[in-house]
């Protein structure tokens, strides 16, 4: 082990190299892989500010309106004087009202109105409709691994060179229509933008951010091993830097015991008896809700490097993650009936990029009779297992490891398609093995 590992120095070395390639490199593209919570947004903001400061106006491509608004707010926070354009759709309520407070942010549905501003930010979908403007010399493409190749095709004509930033471990983009006929082509429109970019430009410099500031020391090695085996990363904090304590002692129930286990070790598995259930398994949903209720009732406080004093773990610092929307809706209903409000409950897709102190996850394979490609998808589990700063509690029916063994992955291998490692099957086993060490069996 490298005793002298200094996370801040490592991270800033990586960032410097990225900015050097972006500002002064000879290549048309730079790719940055960023593990969960490694400061991707910070990097994007810094790169944008430095490019703008060097007198090189740029466009920024993000994937969702929420991401765009967030970026604009961060840019304005760092440099309130910077002229920023927010290109938005012509729908009603197209952007976050908070942008109206910012004097140097101009908002428009027409790219022409924003010409000449230092930074113009919008979604890939909106950029795809922009035509007849002078191309930008620079672009930053955020969440590039979640962008589809065909979306990049629609916007790539707008810039000469670009910095592509994203997390390769999160959910791959998907198509709702048949796309198999293009599998193996370098420009398969259903593949991710980075896959296509690198297939056509194999010589582009690729960087990665080596330190996760979000994940605690208890989680980073596991997430790194399970989902990023060839590009490992470290946590920015050490064991003991973060602590989770509760004012109210355990009442001995399953939820309380799993909370204590997770507070002590960073992980907790609340295992319900094996059973095949519908997707919205009422017992599991109820268990998730109870865990959240107890987390709040027991007055949790989090100690971390962010502040010298312990900070209360309030509802807005807790999230529940599920695989399906109906599961999220069921959990919301169960929480409401327990009087819990303001806890984020969403699917893995929508939790991408978010960060919380404690997450409670309904395991995607819990109670299922089969393991489909959807439920095995590596990215789904990776998102769910990497949103937390302190602890992650998984609620699951027993028997998932048998289920996995009964359903080895059977994805067809196609010519010309790079096989993704690790596959979801293997990653699921790795996570389960670790969770098993922190198991609390409970019969509700």
């Amino acid at each position, binding site marked *: 082990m490298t005793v002298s590992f200094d996370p801040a120095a490592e991270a800033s070395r990586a960032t410097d190299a990225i900015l050097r390639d972006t500002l002064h490199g000879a290549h048309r593209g730079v790719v940055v892989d960023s593990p969960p919570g490694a400061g991707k947004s910070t990097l994007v903001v810094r790169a944008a500010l430095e490019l703008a400061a060097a007198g090189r106006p740029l466009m920024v491509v993000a994937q969702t309106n929420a991401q765009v608004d967030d970026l604009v707010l961060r840019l304005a926070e760092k440099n309130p004087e910077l002229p920023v354009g927010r290109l938005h759709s012509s729908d009603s309520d197209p952007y976050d009202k908070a942008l109206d407070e910012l004097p140097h942010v101009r908002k428009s549905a027409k790219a022409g109105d924003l010409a000449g501003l230092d930074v113009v930010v919008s979604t890939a979908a909106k950029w795809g409709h922009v035509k007849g403007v002078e191309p930008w010399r620079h672009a930053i493409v955020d969440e590039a691994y979640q962008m589809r*190749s065909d979306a*990049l*095709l629609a916007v790539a004509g707008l810039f000469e060179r670009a910095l592509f930033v994203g997390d390769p471990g999160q959910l791959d983009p998907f198509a709702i*229509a048949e*796309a198999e006929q293009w599998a193996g*082509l370098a420009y398969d429109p259903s593949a991710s933008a980075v896959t296509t*970019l690198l*297939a056509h430009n194999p010589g582009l410099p690729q960087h990665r951010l080596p330190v996760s500031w979000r994940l605690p020391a208890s989680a980073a090695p596991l997430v790194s091993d399970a989902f990023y085996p060839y590009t490992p990363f470290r946590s920015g904090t050490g064991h003991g830097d973060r602590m989770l304590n509760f004012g109210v002692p355990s009442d001995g129930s399953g939820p309380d015991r799993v909370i204590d286990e997770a507070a002590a070790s960073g992980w907790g598995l609340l295992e319900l008896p094996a059973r095949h259930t519908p997707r919205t398994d009422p017992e599991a949903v109820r268990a998730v809700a109870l865990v959240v209720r107890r987390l709040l009732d027991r007055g949790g406080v989090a100690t971390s490097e962010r502040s010298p004093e312990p900070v209360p773990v309030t509802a807005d610092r807790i999230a529940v993650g599920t695989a399906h929307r109906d599961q999220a809706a069921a959990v919301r209903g169960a929480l409401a009936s327990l009087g819990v409000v303001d806890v984020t409950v969403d699917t893995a897709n929508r939790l991408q990029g978010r960060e919380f102190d404690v997450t409670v996850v309904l395991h995607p394979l819990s109670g299922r009779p089969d393991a489909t490609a959807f439920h095995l998808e590596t990215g789904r589990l990776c998102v769910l297992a990497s949103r937390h700063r302190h602890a992650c509690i998984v609620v699951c029916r027993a028997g998932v490891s048998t289920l996995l063994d009964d359903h080895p992955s059977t994805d067809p291998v196609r010519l010309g398609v790079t096989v993704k490692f690790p596959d979801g099957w293997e990653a699921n086993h790795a996570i389960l093995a670790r969770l098993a060490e922190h198991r609390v069996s409970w019969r509700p």
Partner: protein
Amino acid sequence: MSLIDNLARLEATAGGRARPRATVRHRHLSERPLVFVPLVTAGEAGAPLGALIGTERTSPRLLTVPQPRDRDLRFAFLSRLAEILLPYVESYEGDVEAAERTEADAETGKRVKVEVELCADAPQLIVPSRAGVEFVRLLGRSMRFRRTAEQDPDAPYPAPPRVPLLGRWLTHFGERSRVPGSALLLAMTDLLSRHWATGQSSLEEQHLGALLAWIEAPEGTSGAEAALRAELARGADGQLLCPPAGPATDPAFDNQLLAPAIERYDRARTALAAASDGVEADGLLAALAAAERDIDALVESRTRPTWDAVWRGLDALCTLPEAPHAVDRWRGDRWSFTGHRDRVAAGEPPQPRVDDAVTAANKLGTREREQARLDAQEALDDPLVMAGRRLAGEAFAGVVTDVVMAYSEGRSPRPRPLVTVRTGDRPHLDAGVKVYRSLEGKPQAAQFVAYDADADADSDDVGGGGRLVVLRVLDKMGRGKEAEPGSVPEVGDRLCWTLFEHEQRGGPRLPEPEDTPWTHGGPPEGAGPLGERSDAVTSEDIL
């Protein structure tokens, strides 16, 4: 698969008979479809053995290849196929109506409306199963790059005159069938399983005979048993009573009947070739003709049951009235047909072996929009499909209990009435979510405001009160200060609101292939309308 489909499947399993999945027919069916029942030879990809084809139920044309490995005979088969299929396709080319299309103006680059022809109807090809669709694609692929003697006088093995054109059309049919909701080329098993649920897995439903057995089972009988019989029952001779729908044949048929018949044919041909005088040749020719007739009879015996099954499937489908939106989608098929007609007429080269980056992205975008459109239209056309969406929380139906007139803020206030709907459904309504209802065929949008607090107490009581959903109606109320009559829901109206949009927006306009950006490898080699190259002939093409 939606909850309502699972229920239908369970009911079918319990009752032994198919259960409806739809109350209307969601695909347009032509008045004169061309039914095509092909068979292939085992062991060689794309070697046709024979086919039944035609538009008349009682008089299909039988085509056979007595020796499937003989390429001359195969070309003869394809040539006869072209003689039947192409006149059928071309019979739809002449009858046109005027239509408008937006195109980029050649000089200014602006989008302008142009008057163009649109074929009034289009051909429709029906094959028994999905494997048949694949075979149509394969046939298209194997023919479209062929060169006739006229196109290339030096070709060592020129194709018969119309064969490359047939390949282009079959390729077009095969490619179009990948667009969700399209109906130029349909597989009967897909059509039937869209409209009926059985107790079988989707793989088992690819057996047309078994699927029909579930659907056609009379009251009081077990379709499940009939389906098992259709799949497995063999006669005293060891042959399946219900031959598979193909294009693959049953191995027992291949080994016991077909192989000996082909061998007899080969022997007769060899003997004829070795004949030394005319009298002997006459006799041997008769023997060859008899051997050929034997093979014809065998192929017909294996295709005719499937042929009849396809028509019985059409009968079953025609008991359902056509869904209102199916005609809209058929219009898309007519555009597709007209477009290919024009490309052929303009002398454009055949479809390339692989799509370029821009074409692939355009196709995927179109398919995704069509899929979303299909999902929305099927739900709007069919209460049974909508029930599935309602159970999934993607729509809700209810009675209007209250309407309060309200207005938007701003200089010229517009009507934004608040409508309260009582529903027993449980839609996934987050704050600010938009919902849509159909108002005279057009979608009217509203925004979810809140659940009415009065109903919160019994919000779990689905059977009784249900929930009160408060919506703010946003559009389709005219341009005036007051809403136009009939445009605002009234108390007592029973409405169905969807969380999905009814119409699809167009996707981004992609660059032309010759402007493919560096991220996607730059312009393809030989890009441009004239530079496309077909495959070079390799030694494997003329084995």
